[in-house]
């Protein structure tokens, strides 16, 4: 591999050789080699299921490998558990945070560090480290009251308190605004200058280009190559990841926008509990043939808006939500489906699919009326299985059969299935929350293409997402939701990522209105 420009010739901080891990029915890691030098920021790239998470879990001692060795500063080590890894100097920021909601920031940090560091004075040290690296945190707050960005800071501060030599970050930026990402990069570069090695996992290839010195690419459990992100483009890296040419989704510029099929007029809704967000006088129109994007940081009312649109929570008046011209504000989810709405909720397991039911049963549950899957009140199993198999085939869902449980699919595959299930019901209105959350480049492109096709057929599509790249790629107009208020939508040509980022951070009004300049 192209060794780091930093400290070339010195002993690697971390060297893995021949790491192999077999799960039942899946070879997660197949003789993986990886070398990271002191101070190097090293990217680990790969599609969902390529084996990145298994590999970092092995480094952190959560997973035992079947074969292979790990050298730490040149010495052979056997990382028996995460405590041992932490003592070596490995810190890890998890993709799905390893935090305890009902406990305080300080308790959460104390639990994740060596007992001798967790003694009295910890709150003072938390404040010191968080100020030193520009990661403000209040040790006495409870985690459930914090934003996702703040929660991530807890994980980072937890690592920094232990004076790490290697920091592993699994998809750290998927929940941050562009400004927060930039701030985090400053911290990471500073750590790198101080000699800390960083192993950085991300799907966002332009971020890797901006930050990392080297990249290792994995596919199907194997290392398929190394590259220098500085000389590659995001497109070439994506192609190395998926192993074929990436077909970028094409927006059909000839799309004709028609009537407004989804109209929200003055929707207000009190939050169910004090940690939720109240919706405040939300109005929007989604027209036939267009894709409206709603940007926003998690926890600003997206979930509540989705609940109000899907009918999981009913509005106070029936005239605040209009679907195909019908007053739908007081209709339940089933009635709205009958009107021709397709839903792709954020939570795939639990909202989008029943985890312990098979794929065909899940297909039945949402498609039973619109796909006519009932015979005199009984399930038409043959027709349902056929429908489920078509979804699997048309949307390239990787599964060994439609009688497998929804929970057995990887996140990206299940998302493709849910997306396909809704699209094949030919919805006139499609509402998707975070459609490509945690989904790799290849699958994301397929999902985006499906949304374009749907709009082309005349559906009104609403995409609510935190991923600005996604919104800029698919939307014709973008609105921003912040603290439960929705800005007016603007054509995507008139907007920049920076403007949207500022508005997501709590600056209300569109950029040309008022002209405030305040970074929240």
């Amino acid at each position, binding site marked *: 591999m192209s060794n780091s420009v930093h400290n070339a010739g010195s002993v690697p901080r971390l060297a893995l050789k021949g790491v192999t891990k077999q799960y039942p029915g899946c070879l997660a890691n197949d003789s993986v080699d990886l070398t990271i030098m002191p101070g190097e920021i090293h990217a680990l790239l790969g599609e969902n299921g390529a084996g990145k998470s298994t590999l970092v*879990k092995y480094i952190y001692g959560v997973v035992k490998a079947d074969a292979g060795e790990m050298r730490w500063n040149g010495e052979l080590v056997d990382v028996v558990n995460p405590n041992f*890894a932490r003592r070596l100097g490995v810190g890890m920021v998890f993709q799905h945070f390893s935090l305890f*909601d009902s*406990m305080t920031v300080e308790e959460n940090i104390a*639990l994740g560090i060596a*007992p001798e560091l967790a003694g009295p004075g910890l709150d003072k040290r938390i404040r010191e480290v968080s100020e030193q690296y520009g990661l403000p945190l209040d040790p006495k707050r409870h985690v459930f009251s914090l934003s996702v960005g703040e929660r991530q800071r807890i994980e980072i501060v937890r690592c920094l308190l232990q004076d790490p030599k290697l920091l592993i970050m699994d998809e750290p930026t998927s929940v941050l605004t562009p400004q927060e990402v930039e701030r985090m990069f400053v911290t990471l570069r500073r750590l790198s200058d101080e000699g800390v090695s960083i192993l950085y996992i991300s799907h966002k290839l332009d971020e890797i280009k901006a930050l990392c010195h080297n990249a290792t690419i994995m596919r199907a459990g194997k290392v398929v190559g190394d590259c220098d992100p500085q000389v590659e483009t995001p497109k070439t890296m994506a192609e190395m990841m998926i192993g074929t040419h990436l077909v970028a989704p094409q927006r059909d510029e000839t799309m004709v926008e028609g009537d407004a099929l989804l109209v929200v007029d003055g929707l207000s809704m009190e939050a169910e509990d*004090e940690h939720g967000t109240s919706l405040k006088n939300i109005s929007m129109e989604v027209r036939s043939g267009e894709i409206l994007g709603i940007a926003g940081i998690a926890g600003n009312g997206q979930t509540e808006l989705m609940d109000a649109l899907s009918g999981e929570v009913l509005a106070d008046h029936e005239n605040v939500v209009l679907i195909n011209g019908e007053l739908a504000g007081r209709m339940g989810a089933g009635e709205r489906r009958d009107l021709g709405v397709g839903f792709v909720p954020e939570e795939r397991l639990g909202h989008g699919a029943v985890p312990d039911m098979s794929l065909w049963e899940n297909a039945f549950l949402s498609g039973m009326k619109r796909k006519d899957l009932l015979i005199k009140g009984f399930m038409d199993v043959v027709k349902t299985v056929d429908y489920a198999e078509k979804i699997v085939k048309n949307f390239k869902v990787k599964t060994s059969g439609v009688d497998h449980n929804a929970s057995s699919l990887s996140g990206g595959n299940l998302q493709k299935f849910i997306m396909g299930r809704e699209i094949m019901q030919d919805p006139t209105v499609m509402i998707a929350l975070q459609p490509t959350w945690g989904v790799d480049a290849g699958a994301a492109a397929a999902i985006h293409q499906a949304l374009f096709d749907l709009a082309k057929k005349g559906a009104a599509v609403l995409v609510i997402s935190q991923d600005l790249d996604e919104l800029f790629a698919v939307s014709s107009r973008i609105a921003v939701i912040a603290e439960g208020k929705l800005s007016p939508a603007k054509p995507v040509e008139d907007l920049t990522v920076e403007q949207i980022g500022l508005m997501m951070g709590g600056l209300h009004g569109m950029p040309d209105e008022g002209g405030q300049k305040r970074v929240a």
Partner: protein
Amino acid sequence: MDSAIVIASVLTIMTAATPLVFAALGELIVEKSGVLNLGVEGMMIVGAICAFATAVTSGSAFLGIIVGMLAGAGLSLLFAILTQNLMANHVATGLALTIFGIGLSALIGDGFAGQKLDPLPKGIPGLSDIPVIGPLLFGHDILVYFSIVATGAVAWFLTKTRAGMILRAVGDNHDAAHSIGYSVIKIRYMAILFGGAMAGLGGAYISLAYSPLWAEGMTAGRGWIALALVVFATWKPWRAFLGAYLFGGVTIIQLIIQGYGINIPAQFLSMLPYLATIVVLVVISRDKYLVKMNAPACLGKLFHASH
């Protein structure tokens, strides 16, 4: 009512509450670790008969207490193996444990029914002779004092110690606890065994002190009340203690009212503690925030380690 009756009532309330305190404290720790063990009633009654049988046979009440606790812990070990290693459903296993415990206690107790036993000695010599406050403060058996100490110890353990913090963390998010590097199953095993020993101790108190004899089914649903108390207390030890005294009080007051010949059907009065449990549970559960803030998020969920 003269003061002697009041003092006597308070003393009986305390003995009625003490087994509930033990069982509820044990279950509180179990639930804080994310495990729901509905077998409290079964562990209590097995603790009761094992303690009684040992005390009668050996003549040592102390040995009886120890054996009662071991019996409760033994039964909970069965629960732990089934739910933690064999991944059986917590609710079904707990219910089965209760039914099993009631049957087992009847089997062991065959032949012990009707036998007599001296109750646990009460009172600190000298001090308990002081009028009024003497019997109230110093007139109890050793386990009443121990129940107070135990409540304080559990509260201290949960809020002030690192081990208690880890226990709460395991109950709040077992996957996160596992990925940070805590042994979820080991910690839950210890919590379950503690819960079993405390339920056994509660049972032993019933058969050695509260009513020193053996009768089939003598725990009479106290295990269920203890379970309810944990929710009633929103998983806080001192509130569970208070709750136990409240329910102990209702139990005893209905007896006193009956004793005064007030014309309320006895069956209605015996319903009171259970009715009060339901009312309190409804009132508490209505406050979503209170439950969310204190309830262990992983309560009753199975944990599959990811490797």
